[in-house]
């Protein structure tokens, strides 16, 4: 039987506020235990929550960025459960009336574009941390993280493969960092993914029973966990066993998922509106002010790169993988403007795109640098591209200049002059070298005349060697053909 995997994701995004969502304690990462846990975070008697405007503002920004409905009146609710890292005995979250509902996000899988619907996004507070190791059989509790603002973003079950799920998670990660509501640091838990996975016979409308994989903190683990889980579920069903709803954990060491708790004695969270917090009202002026400050979004840039710059969907998606990459690319284009290319702006854009996604990305990767830390400024890269475009540099020489730019030897023109790298444009000089090469290689000439094409390539190689790669290969080809009698 052919099976289809169905995936929905719940992503917890930690918001970039300075203070916590309901208290004035700091959210900075890495402080000594409990030094950022105030009376409100500790749930001491008599304390009351007061909502942080910055958290609400970030949720609005997100809602606008995914074209969602913003609930002008939204309500905080208590989600009741007992755990030592949750001192109040309930988490303040949103239930019936979340701040954001019904948005969508386009994703790119290869050259395919697909839209993933986002059911809702709601504000809530994070819990503290339990440390289970070695406290004489006791558990240590650090409440620094308690009360950190989170936006939980819930998708519809619209993804059909681990690759689509990863593409969605990446697109969401790009978006939340792009609009500055999250620092995106997955190691520090700023972006945590839960995946709901089920399988069904291909063509079937009804959903299978799902299992939820909790707390995936890398895109690679997300992909591995979904693939393992889907295979496991298919195996169970093919062996005639039923799938039971459950929460599972992914073990990166074994690459397997294992059951954490069965949902049968499921948590009954007994949600109810939090009487300590009044409904939140979003005013139109505030929403419009936030809308006016939104930057051009990745999906808008992608559409513009395709329409105005004639780039492929793949190139457009790659260049907008982060705001820093898009800004770098646009700075290169701006420095190239007015476009020197005979093909106009599109030609310059394709050239710039190829170098940003190719040699520059490779160099950054090699040294583990972010594009914002690039050793080559956009202006200097543009200087190199201009010399490729006007024929001064062959592609081989361009790579040499790029390496020298990376090593900090100055701008492209300085490097070209210092190393004598100019592509040979003097036709007379090239003719002289071609004649010398022909005279010195009578055997190749004879072989070529006898019909061996390989011999021609050998002659081209000899000319390039004699010019130290400075000759234009097309020109060499043409000249050789002419000299050899066509």
């Amino acid at each position, binding site marked *: 039987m052919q099976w289809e995997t169905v995936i929905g994701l719940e992503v917890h995004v930690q918001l970039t506020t300075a*203070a916590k969502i309901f208290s*004035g304690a700091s959210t900075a990462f890495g402080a000594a235990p409990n030094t950022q846990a105030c*009376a409100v975070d500790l749930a001491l008697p008599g304390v009351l929550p*007061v*909502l942080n405007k910055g958290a609400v503002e970030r949720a609005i920004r997100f809602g606008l960025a995914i074209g969602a409905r913003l609930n002008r009146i939204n309500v905080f609710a208590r989600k009741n459960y007992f755990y*030592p890292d949750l001192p109040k005995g309930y988490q303040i979250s949103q239930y019936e009336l979340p701040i954001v509902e019904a948005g969508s996000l386009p994703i790119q899988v290869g050259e395919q574009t697909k839209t993933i619907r986002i059911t809702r996004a709601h504000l809530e507070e994070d819990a503290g941390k339990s440390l*289970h190791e070695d406290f004489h059989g006791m558990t240590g509790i650090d409440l620094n993280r308690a009360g950190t603002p989170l936006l939980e973003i819930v998708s519809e079950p619209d993804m059909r493969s681990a690759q689509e799920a990863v593409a969605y998670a990446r697109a969401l990660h790009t978006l939340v960092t792009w609009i500055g509501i999250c620092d995106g640091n997955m190691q520090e838990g700023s972006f945590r993914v839960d995946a709901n996975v089920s399988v069904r016979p291909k063509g079937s409308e009804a959903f299978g029973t799902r299992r939820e994989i909790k707390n995936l903190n890398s895109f690679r683990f997300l992909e591995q966990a979904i693939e393992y889980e889907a295979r496991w579920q298919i195996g169970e069903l093919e062996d005639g066993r039923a799938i039971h709803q459950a929460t599972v954990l992914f073990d990166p060491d074994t690459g397997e998922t294992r059951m954490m708790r069965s949902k049968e004695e499921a948590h009954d969270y007994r949600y109810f509106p939090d009487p300590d917090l*009044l409904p939140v009202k979003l005013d139109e002026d505030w929403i419009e002010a936030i809308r006016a400050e939104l930057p051009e979004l990745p999906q808008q840039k992608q559409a513009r790169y395709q329409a105005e710059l004639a780039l492929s969907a793949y190139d457009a998606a790659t260049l907008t993988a982060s705001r820093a990459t898009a800004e770098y690319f646009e700075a290169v284009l701006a420095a190239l403007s007015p476009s020197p290319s005979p093909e106009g702006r599109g030609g310059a854009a394709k050239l710039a795109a190829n170098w940003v996604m190719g040699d520059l990305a490779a160099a950054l990767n090699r040294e583990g640098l972010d594009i914002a830390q690039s050793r080559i400024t956009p202006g200097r890269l543009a200087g190199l591209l201009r010399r490729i475009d006007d024929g001064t540099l062959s592609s081989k020489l361009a790579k040499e200049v790029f390496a020298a730019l990376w090593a900090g030897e100055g701008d492209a023109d300085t490097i070209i002059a210092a190393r004598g790298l100019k592509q040979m444009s003097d036709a007379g000089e090239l003719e002289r070298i071609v004649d010398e090469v022909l005279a010195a290689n009578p055997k190749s000439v004879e072989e070529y005349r006898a019909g061996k094409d390989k011999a021609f390539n050998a002659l081209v190689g000899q000319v390039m060697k004699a010019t130290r790669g400075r000759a234009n290969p097309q020109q060499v080809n043409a000249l050789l053909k002419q000299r050899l009698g066509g």
Partner: protein
Amino acid sequence: MSLTLEDIRRIAHLARIRIDADEAARYQSQLNEIFHLIEQMQAVDTAGIEPMAHARDVYQRLREDVVTETNRREAFQAVAPQVEDGLYLVPKVIE
């Protein structure tokens, strides 16, 4: 709607409250009286009326995003039953 004794025991369990058989029976009748009251209120036709969150027409006040709290760990931990390395210690919890 009326609650069974089983419902009462489940609610008590979820709230981590230990109750004996007599208490369960007493709470069952008390809670059912409350449910009866709710039923009476639900019988009122409220079509077209906005749900009310507060007696006055007010909404949540928002606080500026600034850190106002300083580190008072010592004072807070002075009244905690057990602490170590800055952590609050609690009986071991295992998932």
